[in-house]
């Protein structure tokens, strides 16, 4: 076979253009980019046996992250996927990301073994029982609704199945639990009202709705006597920022593919007064003021900030420990919440109805939850996690 066509001038032009492209990137890497500093720091900070293997991997990762116009290239990739009308987009971290029938970007969760999660929850339950502290596990939803066909045909999703098995296991162990999913999805809200299309989190208004459902449950089952009227929507101010947010999933597929989310800031319209203490990396920081001053982190709401700024984090997270004291309710309850990122707006809103709430993030908190609870002595210990956290050792503590 002769691959060659007539040797043509166009090949020379194409070769020159391609080499210019390659060498301009090479020169950028060599002279203009700071990636090497990061790479050098990452590699030489480590002291292990597989130095060369790690160094080569770090080198490749540093380059991957530092390619000039990386975000523009991801946008072009997203545009190409949109033109092809693709609903499955390959992704290095998730394997694939999917566009749901509601045009939301979602990942899927594989089948997970839940035995170690059950053991971890049983352990903490037993330890808290010994301290006479009530404990409840709350199953928060993920954007893929149980029983609803949102994914492309035959895509396997086990997040809800994993959670179902976990809750069944908890029931068999007589551990209190609340499946928030059913009440949450039965409110008649659309998928895009419940969850950001470009992010995996629930929207701030739907998190407020979830908080009111949770309060109803807690009052019913634990007689906490939290004022449910506080959580009615007429008690809040809703400020909408259109096309304001490109969430973590949108960043992976590009705005051209996912579009942008609007962001609704929800703040109480009644008077509030707080002291918020945040513990990270061995030191405490304190803020005082009303809900907006003490709880919200306004840098995440800056309209000049890039669209990929994590607007959801305006509700103050993720911290090893956050303690919120509500000075307007002096005789109220005290809650200890163990949570993943779905807990951010929940503890922010729940704090409106209690005297004090403290949230621990087990991804950062290395101590014993039981020891902490013993010292803190709350009226209730609440675990709240979304379905994707199930089966991943998310509930283990010392």
């Amino acid at each position: 076979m002769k691959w060659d066509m007539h040797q043509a001038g166009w090949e020379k032009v194409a070769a020159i253009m391609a080499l210019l492209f390659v060498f301009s990137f090479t020169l950028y890497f060599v002279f203009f980019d700071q990636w090497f500093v990061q790479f050098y720091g990452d590699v030489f900070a480590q002291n292990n046996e597989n130095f060369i293997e790690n160094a080569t991997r770090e080198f490749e990762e540093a380059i991957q992250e530092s390619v000039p116009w990386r975000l523009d290239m991801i946008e072009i990739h997203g545009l190409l996927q949109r033109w092809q009308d693709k609903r499955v987009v390959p992704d290095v971290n998730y394997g694939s990301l999917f566009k749901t029938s509601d045009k939301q970007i979602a990942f899927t969760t594989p089948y997970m073994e839940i035995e170690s999660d059950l053991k971890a929850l049983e352990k903490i339950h037993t330890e808290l029982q010994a301290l006479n502290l009530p404990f409840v596990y709350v199953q928060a939803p993920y954007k893929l609704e149980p029983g609803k066909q949102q994914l492309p045909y035959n895509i396997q999703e086990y997040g809800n199945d994993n959670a179902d098995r976990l809750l069944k296991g908890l029931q068999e162990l007589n551990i209190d639990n609340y499946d928030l999913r059913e009440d949450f999805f039965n409110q008649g809200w659309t998928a895009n009202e419940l969850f950001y299309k470009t992010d995996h989190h629930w929207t701030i208004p739907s998190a407020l709705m979830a908080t009111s459902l949770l309060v109803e449950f807690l009052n019913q089952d634990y007689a906490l006597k939290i004022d449910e009227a506080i959580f009615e929507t007429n008690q809040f101010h809703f400020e909408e920022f259109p096309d304001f947010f490109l969430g973590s999933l949108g960043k992976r597929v590009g705005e051209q593919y996912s579009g942008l989310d609007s962001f609704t800031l929800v703040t109480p319209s009644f008077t509030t007064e707080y002291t918020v203490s945040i513990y990270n990396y061995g030191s405490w920081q304190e803020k005082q003021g009303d809900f907006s001053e003490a709880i919200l982190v306004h840098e995440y709401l800056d309209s000049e900030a890039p669209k990929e700024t994590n607007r959801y984090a305006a509700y103050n997270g993720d911290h090893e420990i956050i303690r919120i004291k509500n000075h307007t309710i002096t005789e109220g309850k005290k809650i200890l919440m163990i949570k993943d990122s779905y807990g951010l707006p929940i503890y922010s809103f729940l704090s409106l109805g209690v005297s004090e709430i403290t949230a621990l993030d087990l991804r950062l908190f290395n101590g014993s939850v039981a020891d902490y609870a013993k010292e803190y002595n709350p009226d209730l210990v609440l675990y709240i996690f979304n379905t994707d956290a199930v089966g991943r050792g998310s509930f283990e503590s010392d």
Partner: protein
Amino acid sequence: MLFSSLVFLFFFMPFTLVGYYALRPWRSLQNYFLFFVSLFFYGWGEPEFVLVLLVSITCNWFFGLSLQRNAQSKVIRRVILLATLVLNLGIMYYFKYHTFTLTVLSQWVNVSHIPRIALPIGISFFTFQALSYVLDVFMGKVEAQKNPLDVGLYVALFPQLIAGPILRYETIAQQIHHRKETVADFSHGVVRFIVGLSKKVLLANQFALVSEEAVRLAQKNAISSSAAWVGAIAYGFQILFDFSGYSDMAIGLGKMFGFHFPENFDSPYISKSVSEFWRRWHISLGSWFREYVYFPLGGSRVTNQGRLYFNLLVVWALTGIWHGANWTFILWGLFYFVLISLEKAIGFEKLQQREDWIGRFFSAIGHGYTLIMVLIGWVVFRASTLLEASQYLQTMFHLGLLKGLQPDALRLLGENRIFFVIAFLACLPWLQWRRSCIRAYQGIKGVVLTLAIVAMFFISIVYLVKGSYNPFIYFNF
């Protein structure tokens, strides 16, 4: 290191090109430079296996030289040849087949320990190249190289080091010192590299997702018959564009450094018989087995038909085993032995050449029959166990296929419709059809071709930056 990686494209390739052409007045220095960067290329990520490569190079250089110095003694030459085979095949056996052999043996005898041995990338490729050097010296086709670095360059030259094409020494010996770099070759090499990169990144990687999903669903018994066929076809496209893309990149890179490597693929999916398919698929491996196994056994010029089929059996069993230590590869090789033997027995290709209705009939069915057989072969080749292969084939040939395209097949096809169309077109030998396409080709302006190549390159980079799935099937061999 992968050709389809940013570190290769933006670091290794430009620095190697600059270094190589900076040494342009000194051919030997250029060769040493290429040898050492090839070792760096091979050792990237897994440096310990460079030692295996160096042992292979040093021993084969020594064997080649010893053969030449003992040209008069048949006995010594045969001892050296035996030592060559034992060493090369011994290294390959240890890394590639030892664990498998012990696992098989453990079913009948007590094996105390089955080690898990990491496989040096491309060991089958560089071992066959090294063997080719000593065998060519033994057969008197070439002179032995006095300088071990020249042998090293032949074995380790990075464009073809880990996935071929497998260069027979006699085809490249002259080029080590007497190649000529030209602007025309260089620019053609760049274009060829981009074509290969695009095949790999834009086609093979996309089909890999389809075929892997089909296999995953089949393992859960959650796939329809028609979707299983779509998955098998996707794997057929994946392996073609993965491997031929790599060969294109290797040939293109070779040209940038003045080397002319033989072609490895010739539009294999247009074949009208399985025999023809194997003349068009992985040509360098077929050529190696033909030259060093089939012909020495007597080839097809034997008086005894039984001997012919024995020779074929040996070649196809070895072809299967060469691909990997798994019963699936052995079955795959034997499957082709049976098909090619049957074709020879009935004179299938001769029947196709007849000009009567028989010729027309066999020509008409030849293409469909070949593609179906090749797809069945790929299912076995792709499977991790014989049971998995059997279950997948049962799904493919289940009567459910009569129900037409099921929703899962429609989704896999619909999601990737553009890739399926491009892949189908890319399988056709457009450049060989020049006579019929010449008018159309002349009508295409150079600027269109230039923009097409640059666009393909840019889009490939976009996909690499996005960090899509990026495996290389033949690295495992």
